[in-house]
């Protein structure tokens, strides 16, 4: 868990006429899942790779927990930062266990501690240690390989995780599973995560905050919901599909829109978990014969969800304050 701060960071590649990144200032708070979103060539990967000094800025300062990273030895810095890339890059001559052990070994951990850490991480990413420890990367699937890549990055329990389109090369079904895993793991570990993607759905799904990049500048930096509600300009609105109301609904939990439980209600109403999103709620409302759903939390009814409430929610000028 660490804070990352970019101060007036610029990057101009040699022989380039325009800056890859122009005067970026950005603060990533500890424990936040921040996604850098934008089309290829917008500078998002460059921005991320500056954090572990795989790319050096042309000017400006980057602080990690208040310390200028230029003053830290680059390899030492990288050992404290988890790094996951799209092509995974597992070492093909090492077993799954040896791959995960790489950074702890570099840090000189005692053997027993490394071994127990390997088992712990394999359990975390839901690969059976007994079955996967001794396998080579060529003997596991793409999805499993990326899980191992994630475990390898987490091995020395870094405060910061850098993830460069980690699920970009994985089929849609496995990708969704891995995204859910990612959310689960983040809920457990509270890492500061910087995650690069060009996939809008993925960004909206995973991020606490999204920084939208366009031609080397950050156009807007906010929570997914605020971005959809108040896009800074046409570019952001179009990139996110802000006019797609159903997409917006998928970002809001049912609990935020629920109406109080009336004294008497029909106990046979379809129920929905308060942690589900409004898109699911809308779907169930349309599917059910009633115009209301019973919202439950820990199997206890806590309120009602109606079409009218969803409609009202989408018109914040009327209803905004009441449901914040």
């Amino acid at each position, binding site marked *: 868990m660490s804070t990352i701060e970019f101060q007036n960071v610029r990057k101009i590649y040699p022989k380039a006429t325009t800056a890859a990144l122009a005067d970026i200032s950005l603060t990533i708070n500890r424990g936040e899942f921040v996604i850098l979103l934008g089309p290829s060539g917008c500078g998002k990967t460059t921005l991320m790779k500056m954090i572990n000094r795989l790319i050096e800025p042309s000017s400006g300062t980057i602080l990690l927990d208040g310390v200028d990273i230029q003053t830290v030895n680059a390899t030492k810095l*990288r050992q404290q930062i988890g790094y996951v890339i799209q092509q995974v890059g597992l070492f093909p001559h090492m077993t799954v266990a040896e791959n995960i052990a790489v950074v702890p070994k570099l840090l000189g951990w005692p053997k027993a501690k490394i071994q127990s850490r390997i088992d712990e991480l394999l359990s975390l990413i839901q690969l059976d240690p007994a079955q996967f420890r001794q396998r080579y990367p060529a003997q596991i699937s793409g999805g499993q390989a990326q899980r191992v890549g994630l475990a390898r990055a987490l091995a020395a329990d870094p405060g910061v995780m850098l993830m460069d389109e980690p699920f970009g090369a994985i089929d849609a079904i496995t990708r969704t599973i891995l995204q859910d895993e990612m959310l689960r793991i983040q809920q457990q570990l509270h890492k500061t995560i910087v995650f690069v993607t060009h996939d809008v759905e993925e960004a909206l799904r995973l991020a606490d905050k999204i920084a939208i990049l366009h031609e080397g500048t950050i156009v807007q930096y906010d929570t997914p919901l605020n971005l959809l509600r108040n896009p800074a300009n046409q570019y952001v609105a179009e990139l996110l599909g802000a006019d797609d109301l159903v997409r917006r609904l998928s970002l809001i939990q049912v609990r935020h829109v629920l109406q109080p439980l009336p004294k008497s209600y029909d106990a046979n109403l379809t129920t929905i978990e308060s942690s589900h999103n409004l898109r699911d709620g809308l779907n169930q409302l349309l599917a059910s014969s009633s115009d209301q759903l019973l919202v439950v939390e820990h199997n206890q009814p806590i309120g009602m969800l109606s079409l009218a409430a969803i409609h009202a929610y989408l018109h914040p000028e009327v209803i905004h304050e009441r449901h914040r």
Partner: protein
Amino acid sequence: MNDIVDGFNYLVTERTAIWQLLGQHVTISLLGLLIASMIALPLGLLVVRVRWLAGIIMALLSILYTVPSLAMLIMLIAVFGLSKTTVIVTLVIYAQVILVRNIVVGMQSIDRAVLEAARGLGMNAWQIWWRVELPLALPIMLAGLRIAAIMCIAISSIAAMIGVGGLGQLLFQGITFDRADMIWAGTISIAALALVCYGLLALLEQRLTPKI
């Protein structure tokens, strides 16, 4: 057919002399190969790391490789005289192109993502070389070593004509004295040496290839 049998007979009856020739042959070949490897490794890594040097060095080595080995030997006699040095320098020059090319191909066969991961995880240049690049490039490098070894044995045979010994001496003396059994003895022993050497290196290669 009789000549071949005579060749084997010669190998048996003259075994003391044969062992000595074999020793000379192996010494020269091994020395050449060793020095060649010691030069090829840094040169190969230089070619891999410094792009613009790659073209120049590979072109130079390829040109040297096209010079017939006999011509090379005779040219080098002018510099080093009728000595083992002449032969060893010839071996080093010929092995160079094979070794360097295989080092370069071996290094380039490594997935770039693997190298990026190694760097991103915090390995320094030495750790990347020792733990990642070397083990992954080793099979192809060793394949180069195997070919170079066979070539060294072959060129060492020709080198006998400048009087440095080795099994090739049997061939040249056989021709001079018109002794078919000596020529066969030379042929058989050189072939056997090459085969054994090839087999041993292939075994080493197999042992050191990552079990994937």
